[in-house]
């Protein structure tokens, strides 16, 4: 990577000379910034640490001539004299065939190169598995930054690039915070909100004051050099900016450590929410430093408190307003799916900028915007948009993080900004560590009186140790005005050392520490259906008991909120179609999709129809249409994803099996008929893709159902059906005989509805819902239906009726048959009717069905001779042939065979097709 980086940097440094005047520009801006921050509260305060807008309000004037690249340049900075160069170049001679237009593209080029460097760095780090498990990425990036910085310094004798507050606060930080907020596990966050708030507010205040005062005391004692010209106010200011735990650093380090969710959310939540405290403290002290400590009046302190309330609550409100707005807008994007992701980014970013505009806490605003809108937006936007949002956010955040750490490293190389004082640095390090630990212990002691799940010693150690400082502190200290704060250079140096120490030393050691302390780790797995059901049951259970006990506790209020949300908010913010389903939709759809995936996997892989195992890369490559579903699942399956950056964590254990599946499927299943369609419209995604996928799956389902149909319909197969139905009735009778004993068999009837009612359900839903979403996971199977001419619309309710009373009539197959023939006969799907369908192994749930049929038959009559279609088939079907079948048992066999793995799947499928071919 360095090989890559060096020429780039040399290239940059050659051009960068032009930009050497930038620091001067910057410096000239600061007085103004300082001046304006005279008043304390109120929106007229531009000197908020996160509101470094000033720089950019002024810059455009310098860059007047080149508005086209003004934005890009504001991100990168060093290019104030671009225009002159290119002008002279262009007019130097006559017509030139090839022109060197470097200065024209310079700024975006540099940005792009930086991002490329960052990405390549990331890739390279992850080459060595062993290395990355030991060394956190953030450490490596900082080291890399140091190296790059050294190179630039050598090349140009002047540090050209460093982490500028403007760049940081306006572009890099929002991407990370936006990602964190949007994907914040909301339930976990609110469950621990009290704890988080205490740490964020009291803890930060405590740290800030103690560090400030103690540094001042140490200064008085003479341990800090006299050259550090700082009074109490300066030290308090420094304490304020150095004491806040940094979200970027915490995220970077804790992500790799993977501690349990509660611990993570407490530390991370604190790092996000303490922003308001930091902003206010910083502003207040800045203004105190301005006017001089002797002029500070008592009223100012109260103003400070008021300011805190305004900044924090205001920021939160701005965030929530934007969240509501965003959710509301996404209600109406049905026709223009393509802009959905953009809307999400825009609104979340606008929430940040708006908060900055009024010098409220932008981080709070963005966080709450993300948390607030997530539920509704995710429900409103399409599947593709969801994926896009997710990937883009993760990409941006990951790149921003990389850049931040590299820049931190680079900035540290610049000697001109430094002034080293060992006393100050060592004292600061000691103080922040000691006070962090003390604060955590004391607050936890208080908290444990109230917390249901107390935080134990180990948690406290990790929390103290996880108090990482990062780029926010650095950006704040760089923002300081050197004229007002003479000790700025010392503070900068100290901050850099503190950041490096916490990120590198603590970041490096926290993993061994966590291992050593045996801190419970996060389990990054998807909740099972049962867990989901029972979690829901718990919640209601707890609420109910609270109500009975007459306690208006947390669950009581949560339940109240949910009621409110359901009755009003969701109604307003969710699409009608989504709203109607919202209660059960997630669960339901999730299960549908799990089913569908397992159905697809049944082709020979994992048969567990309920317990989901995600197809890993191999099978995804072989199934273009699964990708959507898998993505959907991965996105929605997890309630909590600690790993805010890592998107997919597919357990790829069964690679071999997968590849076997692949071959098996490739050999035996349909070939996707790809139709390459060019996309002409920029505004509408062509539905070709979905259509193909839809059609594939739909056809497959239809085929399999047609099989069922045929077996009944065509006389030569009909007898089997009759027999099986008779059998079924017989078993029903049997069952009624056993009625004194409650039915507790998972019978095939109980299984089969998983297919059929699902359909009818969707049809029903579809009838109610005219809105058509073109890409929504696997449900398209049913969604396809209403589009087609309804030749016998009446039959839908009929089918439904039958379905709903499974114990009365032989329901599910009949239902399927009634519905399906006409479905199958729909003109667009000619394949379904053709006889070659028989040769295609249905991989629908029909496997279960077939198996149960065959087993039923074997109960009443000698097993139907199976004509093997496939050598493997015969073996397997023979295996399952003469089994002692109980009516109810066979049902489970289809489903239960889920655990049988590849062979079983093939067997099930094949035995089904085998019997059909008789």
């Amino acid at each position: 990577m360095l090989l890559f980086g060096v020429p780039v940097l040399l290239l940059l440094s050659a051009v960068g000379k032009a930009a050497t005047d930038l620091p001067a520009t910057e410096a000239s801006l600061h007085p103004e910034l300082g001046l304006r921050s005279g008043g304390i509260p109120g929106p007229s305060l531009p000197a908020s640490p996160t509101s470094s807008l000033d720089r950019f309000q002024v810059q455009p004037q310098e860059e007047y001539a080149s508005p086209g690249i003004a934005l890009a340049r504001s991100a990168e900075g060093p290019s104030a004299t671009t225009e002159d160069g290119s002008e002279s170049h262009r007019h130097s001679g006559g017509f030139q065939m090839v022109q060197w237009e470097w200065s024209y593209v310079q700024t975006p080029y540099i940005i792009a190169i930086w991002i490329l460097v960052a990405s390549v760095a990331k890739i390279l780090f992850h080459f060595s598995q062993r290395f990355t498990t030991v060394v956190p990425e953030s450490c490596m990036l900082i080291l890399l930054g140091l190296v790059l910085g050294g190179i630039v310094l050598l090349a140009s004798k002047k540090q050209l690039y460093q982490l500028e507050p403007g760049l940081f606060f306006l572009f890099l930080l929002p991407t990370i915070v936006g990602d964190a907020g949007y994907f914040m596990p909301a339930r976990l966050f609110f469950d621990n909100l009290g704890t988080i708030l205490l740490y964020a507010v009291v803890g930060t205040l405590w740290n800030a004051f103690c560090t400030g005062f103690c540094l001042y005391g140490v200064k008085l004692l003479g341990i800090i050099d006299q050259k550090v010209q700082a009074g109490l106010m300066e030290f308090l200011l420094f304490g304020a900016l150095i004491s806040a735990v940094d979200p970027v650093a915490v995220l970077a380090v804790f992500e790799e450590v993977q501690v349990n969710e509660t611990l993570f959310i407490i530390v991370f939540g604190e790092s996000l929410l303490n922003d308001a405290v930091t902003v206010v403290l910083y502003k207040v002290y800045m203004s105190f430093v301005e006017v001089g400590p002797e002029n500070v009046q008592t009223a100012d302190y109260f103003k400070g408190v008021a300011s805190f309330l305004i900044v924090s609550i205001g920021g939160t409100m701005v965030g929530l307003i934007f969240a509501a707005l965003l959710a509301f807008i996404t209600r109406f994007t049905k026709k223009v799916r393509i802009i959905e992701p953009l809307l999400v980014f825009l609104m979340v970013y606008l929430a940040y900028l708006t908060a900055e505009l009024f010098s409220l806490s932008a981080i709070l605003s963005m966080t709450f915007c993300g948390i607030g809108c997530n539920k509704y937006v995710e429900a409103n936007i399409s599947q593709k948009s969801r994926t896009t949002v997710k990937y883009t956010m993760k990409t941006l955040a990951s790149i921003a993080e990389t850049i931040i750490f590299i820049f931190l490293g680079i900035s540290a190389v610049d000697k001109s900004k430094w002034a080293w004082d060992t006393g100050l640095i060592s004292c600061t390090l000691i103080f922040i560590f000691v006070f962090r630990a003390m604060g955590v212990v004391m607050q936890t002691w208080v908290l444990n009186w109230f917390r249901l799940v107390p935080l134990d010693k180990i948690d406290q150690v990790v929390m103290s140790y996880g108090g990482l400082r990062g780029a926010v502190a650095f950006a704040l200290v760089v923002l300081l005005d050197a004229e007002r704060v003479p000790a700025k250079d010392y503070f900068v140096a100290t901050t850099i050392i503190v950041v490096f120490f916490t990120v590198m030393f603590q970041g490096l050691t926290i993993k061994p520490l966590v291992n050593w302390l045996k801190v419970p780790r996060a389990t990054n797995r998807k909740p099972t259906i049962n867990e989901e059901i029972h979690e829901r049951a718990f919640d209601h259970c707890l609420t109910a008991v609270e109500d009975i006990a007459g306690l208006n506790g947390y669950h009581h209020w949560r339940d109240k909120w949910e009621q409110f949300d359901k009755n009003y908010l969701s109604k307003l913010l969710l699409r009608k179609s989504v709203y109607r389903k919202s209660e059960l939709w997630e669960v339901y759809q999730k299960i549908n999709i799990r089913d569908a995936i397992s159905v697809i996997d049944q082709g020979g892989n994992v048969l567990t129809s309920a317990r989901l195992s995600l197809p890993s890369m191999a099978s995804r490559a072989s199934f273009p249409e699964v990708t959507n579903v898998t993505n959907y699942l991965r996105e929605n399956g997890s309630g909590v994803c600690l790993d805010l950056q890592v998107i997919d964590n597919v357990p790829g254990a069964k690679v071999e099996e997968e590849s076997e599946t692949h071959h098996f499927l490739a050999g035996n299943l349909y070939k996707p008929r790809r139709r390459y369609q060019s996309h002409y419209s920029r505004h509408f995604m062509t539905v070709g893709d979905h259509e193909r996928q839809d059609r594939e799956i739909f056809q497959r389902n239809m085929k399999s159902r047609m099989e069922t149909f045929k077996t009944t319909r065509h006389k030569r197969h009909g007898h089997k059906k009759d027999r099986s139905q008779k059998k079924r009735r017989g078993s029903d009778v049997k069952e009624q005989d056993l009625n004194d004993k409650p039915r507790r068999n998972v019978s095939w009837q109980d299984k089969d509805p998983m297919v059929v009612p699902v359909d009818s359900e969707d049809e029903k839903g579809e009838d109610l819902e005219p809105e058509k979403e073109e890409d929504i996971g696997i449900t398209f199977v049913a969604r396809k239906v209403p589009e087609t001419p309804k030749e016998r619309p009446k039959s839908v309710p009929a089918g439904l009726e039958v379905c709903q009373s499974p114990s009365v009539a032989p329901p599910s197959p009949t239902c399927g048959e009634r519905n399906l023939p006409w479905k199958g006969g729909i003109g667009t799907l000619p394949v379904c009717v053709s006889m070659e369908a028989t040769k295609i192994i249905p991989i629908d749930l029909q496997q279960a069905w077939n198996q149960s049929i065959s087993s039923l038959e074997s109960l009443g009559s000698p097993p139907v001779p199976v004509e093997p279609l496939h050598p493997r088939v015969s073996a397997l079907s023979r295996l399952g042939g003469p089994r002692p079948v109980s009516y109810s048992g066979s049902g489970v066999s289809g489903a239960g065979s889920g655990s049988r793995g590849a062979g079983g799947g093939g067997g099930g499928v094949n035995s089904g097709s085998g019997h059909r071919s008789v």
Partner: protein
Amino acid sequence: MGALQSLPDEPEYRDLSEKTGFSFEQIGILHKRFKQLSHNEDTLRRDDLNTIPDLACNPIRTQIIEAFFDKRNFHQNGEGTVQEISFEEFLVVMSHFRPPALNMTEEQRENIRREKLRFLFNMHDTDNDGTITLEEYRHVVEELLSRSGALGKETAKGIADAAMLEVASISVGHMEPDEFYEGITFEHFLKILKDIEIETRMNIRFLNMDTTNLCNDWRQERPQRQRFEWLERKT
């Protein structure tokens, strides 16, 4: 207010406290609540619980209420249900939701876990035969989804079936075609929920202090006569 008046003797409280682990204050508060609910009777009936307004929108209301009248939850070896419960039984049922002590051994933790899960299991296993059958499970899911109206029933069935399958595949694993899954036994129940830290989650904070405003909403919804009754008690 009425707390003092309705306080039983000290020894009785001590007894209850030992049995259930609640503090005296908590017992006092719960006792007051008990009196409120039972309209100052010694025993509580289903109807008393059914009329709690906050409970009205709880989808699994009936199951919870049943749990209070289920002998299995009384720490005795009885079975079946009763028509009315005394304060002691009320407390015992409540104590299932008591947060565990701060320092527990692994064994204690496991016991508490089992106990809490047993409570949940009993709640779902309505016929008390040691397994949650598919019917029962469907019923649970149905109730959970009951807020969503007509759409719920079919869906609930599908979900319950899928969930049942999942249990089967998790707990039994390899299943021969002729096997069938009877239902969730308690062991399986433990197994499928092994990843949920129930011992730290199925807790309710029982307050040590009196929060008088609790009764407000209750009072509003009472019929006139009962309100008078209550006021009389109060004075």
